[in-house]
């Protein structure tokens, strides 16, 4: 398995986001919420405030670091939910077939037909703004592709010798699915989840823009960017840094996902750009 430059760039950016998020409480120079002095609002970047201050006089650098926690939470939790739903439905549908397969297929078609942003918008409207609602909304939206992949992988794995051997040994269906099939399709699922983290972070930003983001005063990059759009001329740093943070982290997830896919798919291996 050869991993290209893009993969390592993606891994590097992702690692940076993880470090920022995990270490934020120790490396951030200020408190992201309480260290707000209106007298020092909208200051340009300097030695004290590396990325400047926002309209409330809070340190943008600090908020970007803590924002990484939110973005990571949004990305990881929503993708874990997506993967669990997608894998469970797809694997059982592929393994058992029959009416259950038809039902899951129908459900997948429905979910694919509703644009994910619109579905998330509807869920957020019902649950109200805030982090938990956002996790649910994004966790429920993007499982259909994972489900399709899990189903088709299961279908092809079902006919493999070791699965049939396990069946003749009298193993239960669930045991076969979780011990024989699941481990063999983790690769593509992981790729989907990594790419999905990127779109979850972007969806968070879009929902913030539409007024359905995360509960303030927590610093989410999406809401920082949304709040800053008025300031783009007066205090561009307030908008530039969260925009860059979103861009670089999503780029990281995407490159990582692409790299993983290329390395898992022998067909594509030689042609990674």
């Amino acid at each position, binding site marked *: 398995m050869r991993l290209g430059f893009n993969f390592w760039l993606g891994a590097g950016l992702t690692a940076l986001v993880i470090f920022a998020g995990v270490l934020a409480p120790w490396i951030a120079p200020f408190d992201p919420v309480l260290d*707000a002095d209106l007298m020092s*609002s909208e200051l340009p970047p300097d030695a004290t405030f590396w990325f400047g201050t926002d309209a409330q006089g809070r340190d943008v650098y600090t908020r970007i670091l803590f924002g990484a926690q939110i973005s990571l939470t949004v990305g990881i939790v929503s993708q874990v939910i997506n993967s669990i739903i997608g894998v469970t439905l797809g694997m059982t549908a592929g393994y058992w077939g029959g009416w259950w397969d038809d039902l899951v297929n129908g459900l997948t078609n429905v979910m694919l037909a509703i644009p994910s942003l619109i579905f998330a918008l509807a869920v957020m409207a019902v649950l109200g703004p805030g982090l938990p609602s956002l996790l649910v909304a994004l966790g429920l939206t993007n499982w259909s592709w994972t489900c399709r992949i899990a189903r088709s992988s299961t279908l092809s794995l079902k006919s493999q010798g070791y699965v049939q051997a396990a069946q003749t040994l009298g193993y239960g269906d669930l045991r076969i699915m979780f011990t024989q099939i699941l481990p063999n399709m983790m690769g593509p699922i992981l790729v989907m989840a990594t790419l999905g983290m990127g779109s979850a972070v972007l969806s968070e930003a879009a929902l913030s823009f539409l007024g359905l983001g995360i509960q*303030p005063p927590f610093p989410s990059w999406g809401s920082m960017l949304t709040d800053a759009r008025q300031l783009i001329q007066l205090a561009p740093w307030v908008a530039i840094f969260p925009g860059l943070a979103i861009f670089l982290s999503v780029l990281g997830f995407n490159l990582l996902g692409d790299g993983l896919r290329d390395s898992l798919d022998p067909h594509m291996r030689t042609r990674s750009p």
Partner: protein
Amino acid sequence: MLKKLTLAAMLSLSVATGALAAGERSGGTLVFTAPYGSSFATLDVQASPNTQEEFITQAIHRGLYSWNSIENKPVLELADSEDLSEDGTVHTYHLRKNAVFHNGKPLTADDFIYSYKRIANPKNAFPGASFIAVIKGADEFIAGKADEISGLKKIDDNTLEITYTGPINPGFPLMQNTTVIYPSNVEDETSFAKNPIGLGAFVFKEHVPGSQVVVEKFDKYYEEGKPYLDRINIVLMAEDAARDVAFRNKEIDVSILGPTQYQAYQGEDVLKDHLLEVAEVYTRNIGFNPAFEPFKDKRVRQAINYAINAPLIIERLVKNKAYPASGWLPLSSPAFDKDKAAYAFDPEKAKALLTEAGYADGFEFEVTASPNESWGVPIVEAILPMLKKVGITVKPKPVESSALGDAVTSNTFQAFIWSNLSGPDPLNALRCFHSKTQQSACNYTSYASPEFDKLYEAAQQERDPAKQNDLLRQANNIVQDDAPVWFFNYNKAVMAYQPWIHGLVPNATELAVQPYDEIWIDETAPARQ
């Protein structure tokens, strides 16, 4: 001192715009932006309470009364004069004889009776019904118990007699955009939604849904020589940043400014001389629910008022696009008390009051807040560190704008932040603190004070305006001492206009609503299609 200065500045500004109104020039197209919402709900303005429909009203329609921004009061619009009965309840209106609808029908008393019945018709469930309720017999009609509104009487085509429920000033309810007059000879009422017909200076031309309404000069408008403009494009632009770019690009002629742009425009030579400012009649506040234990104690509510540095928030975050509030009634209210001081920023006093009230260790509360930049979550974020210093933990509870009203009127909040109408009529504004007003109507903080009630009820009976305002001023000060809310600010509305635009007025009820028939464009305007 600051307040007097700004008031003086306001007055001189209105004089200045008034003085400019010489050498009016006819012709041209005004591109007017409507900063609210992103689509017109309907062109049937009687059916809509939204602000964006007021722009259509202003161009196309007229009501019995209209708001005079210079005199700051409602004046007769569709009548030349009125006679008042002894007890002040019966008004006899002598209607304008030269007023003609856009479909050619001359205005008669029938049109008023038709329109008011349409607005009050229970089958329509129109928002203006509560305004028509000031007319005697309207309540029975709204309830479906009568076929006519007994207080409406046609004397002849040009004379209308209206009997009101009391000696009220009917100007406020009957100047609203939901109480304008439609022609009584239109068969298909549903056509008003697509093809509005009114008495205004402009005729409806075109509606591009979600984008703009175009109106054109009405040749038979009743005011001699008006309007000056040939055409107005009323363009919807809810997004501040987009409006800013379009204004700088000279694509639009006026723009309502948010705080950030207000600050930016003041700093730019080409823009700063063309800003129209007015103290609007809204009071921004955080309402406390007395059902929440700590807020039962007046000292706690006062402590919060002392603990927050409101002027600092106004200066730094709101960019001076507001006036600090020293009570409920705003600067432009006739009952505003200019001698009453606002709560000073005094954290020590706040702590002392909290200790007295038994909250030395502080407490925690939630503020239900919409995303609005001037009276929503950002303000709660700003008070959060200030209240933390006196031991109080604030949590913003963000809701969508549409859910805010629901949360407040269903009384399911600990505190809320909102901007509420506090004028221009002080009697109506203070109704919201009368203990007989339902919580879900507008007594959102369930305020009840016998002392206040006594003054307010006396003011209701008082017919001398000066004495009435005096009573209301005292009532207002009782509310301030009781602090059922945190008094934040009174809105300052700011409109930027291109240098070739003339005839704008500082309308304290809503700056964006401008008398289109007074506006004219000079020859420096760039050519537009």
